[in-house]
C-alpha cells in the first residue's frame, strides 16, 4: 500500500473522528435544547391552563351570581318590572289627585257663585218684603180712614205687615245660614285642597325618584347583561387562542422527532464507516484525545450561550458568568432589545 494512500486514509479517518466528536456535541446540544424548550413550553402551557381554568371558574362564579341576580330567585329584572308598574301606578294616583284638586276648585268656585246668587235673591226678597210692609202700612192707614168699613181690611193689612216683617227676618236668616254654610264649605275645600297639594308634592317627589331608580336599574341590568355576553365571548376567544397555540406548539414535538431521526441516520452512517474501516484491515493510529481537544476548543470558541457549555460537560467560563451577571443587572433598567 502506498504512502500517499495511507496518508489519505489517515486524514479521512481523522476527519471522520472529528465529525464523530462534533456530532456527539451536536447531539447532546440538540437533546439539551429540545428538553429545555419542551420543559419551558410545558411550564408555560401548564401555567396558561391553570390561569385559564382559574379565570374560567371565576367567570362562571361571576356569571352565575349575575344571572341569579338578574334572572334567579332575587330576580332583579322582575323587581325592576314591579318597580316600573308601581311607578306607573303612582303616576296614575298623582294624576287622579291633580284631577280631584281641579274638580274641588271648580265646585268651590261654583258654590261661591251660587252663594252670590242666593244673596241676591235674599236681597230681592228683603226688598219685596219691605215694599210689602210699606204697602201694608199704607193699607192700614187707608183702612183707618174708611172707618167701620175698613175694619176687616185693617186686620188683613196688619197680617200682611206681620208676614212681610217675618219674611224679611226669615230671608235674612236664610241668607246668613247660606253664607255661613258656603263660607264653611269653601274654607273646608280650601283646606282640603291645601292638604291634597301637600300630598301631591310628596307624590311627585317619590314618583320622580322611583322613575330615576327604575331607569337606573333597567340601565344596570342591561349593562350587566352586556358584560355577561362580553365575558362569554372573551372566554370563548381565550379557548380558541389556546387551541391555536396548542396546534402551533406541536411543531416542537415534530422537531424533536426530526432531530432524533437525523441522529439515528448519522449514527448508522458512522457505524457503516467503522465497519468499512475494519474491513480494510490497515493499522492506522489516531490520537483521539487530540481530536477531542481540538473540537472542544472550536466549540468553546463558537459557544456564546452559557447553557451550551453543558453539551461539552464543562463549567461555564468565569467571564461568561460575569457577563451574564452584568446582563441581568442591565436588564433591570429601561432597555431596548434587538
Amino acid at each position, binding site marked *: 500500500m502506498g504512502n500517499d494512500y495511507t496518508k489519505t486514509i489517515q486524514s479521512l479517518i481523522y476527519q471522520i473522528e472529528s465529525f464523530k466528536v462534533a456530532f456527539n456535541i451536536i447531539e447532546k446540544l440538540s437533546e439539551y435544547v429540545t428538553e429545555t424548550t419542551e420543559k419551558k413550553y410545558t411550564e408555560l*402551557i401548564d401555567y396558561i391552563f391553570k390561569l385559564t381554568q382559574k379565570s374560567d371558574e371565576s367567570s362562571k362564579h361571576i356569571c352565575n351570581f349575575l344571572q341569579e341576580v338578574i334572572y334567579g330567585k332575587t330576580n332583579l329584572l322582575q323587581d325592576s318590572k314591579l318597580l316600573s308598574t308601581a311607578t306607573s301606578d303612582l303616576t296614575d294616583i298623582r294624576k287622579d289627585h291633580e284631577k280631584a284638586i281641579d274638580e274641588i276648585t271648580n265646585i268651590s268656585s261654583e258654590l261661591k257663585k251660587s252663594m252670590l246668587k242666593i244673596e241676591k235673591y235674599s236681597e230681592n226678597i228683603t226688598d219685596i218684603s219691605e215694599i210689602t210692609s210699606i204697602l201694608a202700612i199704607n193699607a192700614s192707614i187707608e183702612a183707618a180712614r174708611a172707618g167701620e168699613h175698613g175694619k176687616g181690611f185693617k186686620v188683613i193689612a196688619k197680617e200682611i205687615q206681620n208676614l212681610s216683617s217675618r219674611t224679611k227676618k226669615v230671608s235674612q236668616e236664610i241668607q246668613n245660614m247660606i253664607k255661613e254654610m258656603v263660607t264653611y264649605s269653601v274654607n273646608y275645600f280650601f283646606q282640603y285642597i291645601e292638604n291634597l297639594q301637600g300630598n301631591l308634592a310628596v307624590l311627585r317627589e317619590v314618583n320622580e325618584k322611583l322613575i330615576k331608580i327604575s331607569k337606573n336599574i333597567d340601565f344596570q341590568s342591561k349593562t350587566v347583561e352586556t358584560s355577561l355576553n362580553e365575558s362569554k365571548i372573551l372566554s370563548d376567544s381565550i379557548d380558541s387562542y389556546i387551541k391555536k397555540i396548542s396546534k402551533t*406548539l*406541536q411543531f416542537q414535538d*415534530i422537531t424533536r422527532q426530526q432531530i432524533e431521526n437525523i441522529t439515528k441516520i448519522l449514527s448508522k452512517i458512522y457505524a457503516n464507516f467503522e465497519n468499512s474501516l475494519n474491513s480494510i484491515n490497515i493499522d492506522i493510529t489516531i490520537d483521539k484525545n487530540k481530536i477531542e481537544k481540538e473540537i472542544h476548543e472550536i466549540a468553546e470558541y463558537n459557544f456564546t450561550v452559557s447553557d451550551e457549555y453543558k453539551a461539552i460537560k464543562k463549567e461555564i467560563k468565569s467571564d461568561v458568568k460575569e457577563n451574564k451577571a452584568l446582563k441581568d443587572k442591565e436588564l433591570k433598567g429601561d432597555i431596548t432589545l434587538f
Partner: protein
Amino acid sequence: MSKKILIVDDSEMIRNFHSYTLKSANYDVLTAENGADAFEKLLQQKIDMVITDINMPVMDGYTFIKNIRQEDDFKDIPIIIISTEDEAQDKEKGFNAGANLYLVKPINPNELIENVKLLLGD
C-alpha cells in the same frame, strides 16, 4: 358520568395539550408516558378510548396497540394514533396493529374532538 380517555405520549407537553383539548369537551383524561405504562393503567380501570403516539421509549405505539387487541376486554375499544410519521406505510402499520384512526401531528384540537365524538358515538 364523563367518558374516560387514556392519552399515551412520551412528551409531557403533548399530553398536556391533548388533556386540555379533551377536558374542554367534558371528557375525563388519564395519561401515560409509554405503551407499557399505558397498558398497566388500562388493566387497572375502565377506559373508553385510547389516544397514542407511535415513537415512545420502553414500548412503542404499534406494540402497545397489538397488546391491547390481544385482550378480549379491549377488542372493541376505540384507538386513535396521533403521530408525526406521515408515510403511507406507517399508517398501514398502525391500522394493521388495530388502530381505528390515524391522525398526523400537528392536529387541530377541534378536529381531535370531532373524531373522538364520532368514535365514541357522542
